[in-house]
C-alpha cells in the first residue's frame, strides 16, 4: 500500500488582510499536483492574493499554506520561487535583449537551454537578439513565460497572463501552456474569463468575496457569466484581488 502524496498546495483557514480589508477570509482548499487548475471569480474575490501566497510574494495574516506537505513559511523563499515560477498579468520585460532577460533568470544559462525555453514558450531562436521592450504584448508575455521556464519550475503560477492580449495571442498562449502542463509541469491559472477556464483547465476553484464559493454560488456565478465581464478594477498585482 502506498501513502497518498500530499496535494500541491493546501490552504488551511487562510486569511489575508490588505488595507484593512480581508482579501481572503478563512480559505481552506487544496490544489492538485497535476494538470491545470483554474482559479476563477469576479473582481476582488481574492484570486491574485491566493496565487501570490503560493510563492510567498504575500504571506497569510492567519492560517497556513503547505507546498507538497511542507509548511511554506519553513521553506527558503528563493528556492521556493525557483520551483514555483510566476507569470504576471502585465508583461514585465526587463531592459535589454531577450537574451539579457533570460540571463536574469539563470545567469549562466547555455544557448541550448535558452533556445529550448523560447521554443517551449512558442518563440523562435531569432528572438534572442530582439529588444525585449519593443515586442508586442503577446510576444513579451511569452518571453516572460520563457524566462520563468528557464528556472525549470515544477509549478507555474499564471496571474491573468492573457488579459492584455488579443484573441489570437490569447489562444496561442493557452496552447503553449497546455503543452507545458501535459509535459508534467503543474499549472495554477488565475483568470476572470470563464470561457478561458473551460478551455484550458482540468478543474476550477471559484472564489467569491475572498472565500471559496459554495456549489450553489459557483453555479450561479457560471450561469450569470460574471467572470466574462470586463474587469476594470482587476489591473494590478497589489495583492488586493
Amino acid at each position: 500500500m502506498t501513502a497518498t502524496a500530499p496535494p500541491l498546495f493546501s490552504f488551511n483557514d487562510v486569511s489575508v488582510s490588505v488595507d484593512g480589508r480581508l482579501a481572503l477570509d478563512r480559505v481552506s482548499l487544496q490544489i492538485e499536483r497535476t494538470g491545470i487548475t483554474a482559479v476563477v471569480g469576479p473582481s476582488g474575490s481574492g484570486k491574485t492574493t491566493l496565487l501570490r501566497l503560493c510563492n510567498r510574494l504575500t504571506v497569510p495574516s492567519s492560517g497556513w499554506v503547505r507546498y507538497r506537505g511542507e509548511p511554506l513559511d519553513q521553506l527558503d523563499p528563493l528556492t521556493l520561487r525557483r520551483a514555483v515560477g510566476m507569470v504576471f498579468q502585465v508583461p514585465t520585460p526587463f531592459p535589454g535583449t531577450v537574451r539579457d532577460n533570460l540571463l536574469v533568470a539563470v545567469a549562466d544559462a547555455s544557448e541550448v537551454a535558452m533556445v529550448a525555453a523560447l521554443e517551449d514558450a512558442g518563440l523562435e531562436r531569432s528572438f534572442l537578439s530582439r529588444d525585449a521592450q519593443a515586442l508586442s504584448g503577446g510576444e513579451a508575455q511569452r518571453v516572460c513565460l520563457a524566462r520563468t521556464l528557464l528556472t525549470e519550475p515544477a509549478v507555474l503560477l499564471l496571474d491573468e497572463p492573457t488579459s492584455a492580449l488579443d484573441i489570437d495571442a490569447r489562444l496561442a498562449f493557452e496552447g503553449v501552456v497546455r503543452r507545458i502542463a501535459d509535459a508534467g509541469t503543474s499549472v495554477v491559472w488565475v483568470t476572470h474569463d470563464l470561457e478561458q477556464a473551460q478551455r484550458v483547465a482540468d478543474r476550477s476553484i471559484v472564489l467569491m468575496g475572498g472565500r471559496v464559493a459554495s456549489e450553489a454560488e459557483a453555479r450561479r456565478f457560471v450561469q450569470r457569466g460574471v467572470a466574462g465581464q470586463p474587469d476594470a478594477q482587476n489591473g494590478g498585482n497589489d495583492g488586493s484581488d
Partner: protein
Amino acid sequence: MEATDIGWTGLAASLVLVALALALSLIQRLGLELEIGWASLRAGVQLLIVGAALVLVLDDDTPVALSWVWVVAMIGFAAFTIRSSASDVPGILGVSLASMAAITVVSMGVIFGLGIFPHEPVAIVPVAGMLIGNSMSQTVLAANRVVAEIGEKRTEVEARLALGQPATVAARPYVAQALRTALIPQIERTKATGIVILPGAMTGLILAGVDPTDAVLIQLAVMYLILGSVATSVTIVGLGVRRQLFTADHRLVRLDEAA
C-alpha cells in the same frame, strides 16, 4: 592683500540686491515677496546666532571637544531636516543619521588623520558643516528617488523576486538608477568648477585675503572631500532605504504601509 571686513554697513548694502529681487517679484507679479523676505530674514537671524555661537566655539581657549559636540549637533539637525524633506520614505531618520555620521567620521578621519587641515576648532566646524550641508540635499534626492523608482517599477521588481532573486539583487538596477540621478548634479558641479562655478570657499578665502594659489589648493581638497562625502552619503541612504522596502523573506512591502 588686506583681509576683507565688510562690517554692518557692508551687510546692509548687500540687502540692496534683496530689494532688487523683491522689486522684480512685485513688478512681474511672481508673488514671492513674502518668501524672499522671510528667507532673507531667517538666514540672517540663523547665521548671526550661529556666528555668535561660533565665536565661543572657535575661541582659542575653548576645548576642541566643544567643536565635536557642535558637529554631533549638526549631524542630528541634518538628519531631522532630511526626514522633514523626505517624510514619505520609510525609516529615513535612522538611515540619514547613519549616513551623516558615517561621512563625518570617514571624511574627518581623512582630513585630520592625513593632516590636510589642522585639528583645530577653526577647521573642524566649518569643514564638517560644508560636508554635511552639501550631502543633505543629495541625500534627500536619493531617498525619494529610490522609493519612487521601486514604486514605479514594482511589477518588474516583483517579477525579479518571482524568479528567485534575492531582494538586494532584484532592487539593484532601480537603486542604481536612483543613485545615479542623485549623484549627477554633484558630478556636474565638480566638472564645471573653475569654468562656470567659482566655488564659495575659494571665493571667500580670496575675499578674506588668502593667496589665490593657497585658496585653490584648499578649495580642491574641500571639493574632493565633498564629492566623496556626497557619493558616500547617497550610497548609504540608497542602500538603507532599499533595506526598509523589503522584508527579511524577500518580499516587497507595500510602500504606503512602509512609510
